[in-house]
């Protein structure tokens, strides 16, 4: 798997004002000069980066730096917030997500999302996973059973719940609920998985399980993960983007960001001098 680099980035550190018009052909998500506003206040400034396919890209940065806002812009979850709007280019497989004719329903099916605090529906485990499939029109019981099982297997939860598929999802532990939410997102077969601090509400053991899961999943899915835990980012991701105050400060291979950061602020952050 070739890792494509933004041709301009190798010459100097990424700056928010970069207006590179060429998009890398192997990148799954291409972002060019993306701004985001909550009402009158601008919270994202000219974000430009490429997320390569089938890799894990981590977004790190201090609280309030805009990483959650950014990740939610990719699948346009921010649309449900009143007075919020984004401008710029976010392309998935070459198609602009913010084009006026974008079908947000379809978009969100192809881009799965897992949230900071697990939010299973108050239904059975089976019904949770099947939800996305059912609203998509799938009625066939056999197909549903197959896909639910496949999703639970992929989310490394099958063994633990296979005997109580029709039991309540709320009865699962926090870590299990989060894996359930991952399985639920996987069920509709997205190509991209967005994870907004998926393990921050979990204990260390459950966190490890999630991280292992992410490692397994990246064979099939392009994963973008927001985390405030730098060790996690270092463990889990191939590329890391460092955000601060709504700007993308530095972006590159995880190894480089942590061992050999180009910007001083990046170095300060990853060495724990602030944040």
């Amino acid at each position: 798997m070739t890792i494509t680099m933004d041709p301009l980035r190798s010459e100097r550190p990424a700056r928010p004002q970069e207006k590179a018009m060429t998009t890398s052909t192997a990148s799954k998500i291409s972002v060019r000069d993306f701004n985001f506003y909550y009402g009158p206040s601008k919270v994202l400034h000219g974000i430009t980066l490429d997320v390569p396919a089938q890799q894990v890209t981590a977004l790190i940065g201090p609280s309030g730096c805009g990483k959650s806002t950014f990740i939610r812009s990719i699948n346009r979850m921010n649309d449900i917030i009143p007075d919020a709007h984004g401008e710029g280019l976010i392309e998935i497989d070459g198609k602009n997500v913010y084009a006026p004719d974008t079908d947000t329903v379809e978009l969100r099916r192809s881009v799965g999302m897992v949230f900071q605090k697990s939010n299973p529906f108050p239904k059975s485990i089976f019904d949770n996973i099947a939800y996305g499939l059912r609203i998509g029109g799938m009625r066939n019981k056999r197909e549903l059973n197959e896909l639910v099982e496949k999703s639970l297997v992929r989310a490394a939860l099958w063994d633990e719940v296979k005997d109580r598929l029709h039991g309540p999802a709320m009865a699962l532990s926090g870590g299990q609920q989060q894996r359930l939410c991952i399985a639920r997102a996987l069920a509709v077969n997205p190509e991209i998985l967005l994870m907004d601090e998926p393990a921050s509400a979990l204990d260390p053991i459950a966190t490890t399980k999630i991280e292992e899961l992410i490692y397994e999943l990246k064979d099939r899915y392009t994963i973008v993960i927001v985390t405030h835990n730098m060790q996690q980012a270092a463990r889990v991701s191939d590329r890391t983007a460092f955000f601060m105050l709504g700007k993308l400060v530095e972006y590159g291979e995880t190894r480089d960001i942590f061992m050999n950061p180009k910007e001083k602020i990046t170095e300060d952050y990853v060495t724990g001098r602030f944040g």
Partner: protein
Amino acid sequence: MTSNARRRKIISRIAETCCALAVLIALVPLVMIFFYVIKEGFGSLNLAFFTNTPKPVGEVGGGMANAIVGTLILIGLAALFAVPVGVICGVHLSEYPDSRFSAIVRFAADVLNGVPSIVVGIFAYGLVVLPVKRFSAIAGGVALGFLMLPIVVRSTEELLRLVPSGLREGALALGATRSRAVFTVIIPAALPGILTGILVALARVAGETAPLLFTSFNNQFWSTNIAQPIASLTVQVFTYAISPYDDWHRQAWAGAFLLVMIILTLSIVARLAVRRLERMNRP
């Protein structure tokens, strides 16, 4: 897949439209009622309405002066009973929120809130009318008081709970006893809200008819004697409405108009009074 998505989006649009329609449908009777009350009622208001007592059928110029006064007397009596009991009960519930007794009382207040007003009327009948074998304004006031009680209790309790604990601690630190602290510091601080609760409760009982039918009954003549039956706007409107006479129908509409005005005024005064007192208490 896309045709499925299109179908779902259409369904979503239709459903959202239906919800908006529901709002419009609910507004239709509201508008109609106000329209008719204003149209039929306002036009039938005249000086005689306010100053005269009812006249026999056929005679022109009858009014509802006694009924207007009667309603005011009845809600006054109701407040006399419900305000002290309700406020102090609210005080107890807010001071001892977790005791089992408080839980039971709170539950009882909720139950009382849901009892149909006519059943409360029967209770007042047994309590006040039966022993003296006479209908009276007092009986009506008691019935309305019972109906006011849960509203006053609940709003008082909620408002007292909202008073910051710093206020109470400050009073106690200055050596005030608990009762002193509550009555001289905490209740005054919550007064705007408590008054609102009382006004809201008054607005609700001013419109009651059923419990009055056999407690305060009715009175064609001018009377302010609370030991006697007394007229009220609501009962008078009812009596006139079910009669076969056009003139009385017109007066019924006028009475209804006045009733709605009184209730709206009470509600608006409640809101304004709160704002004014709040501004006074918090510089």
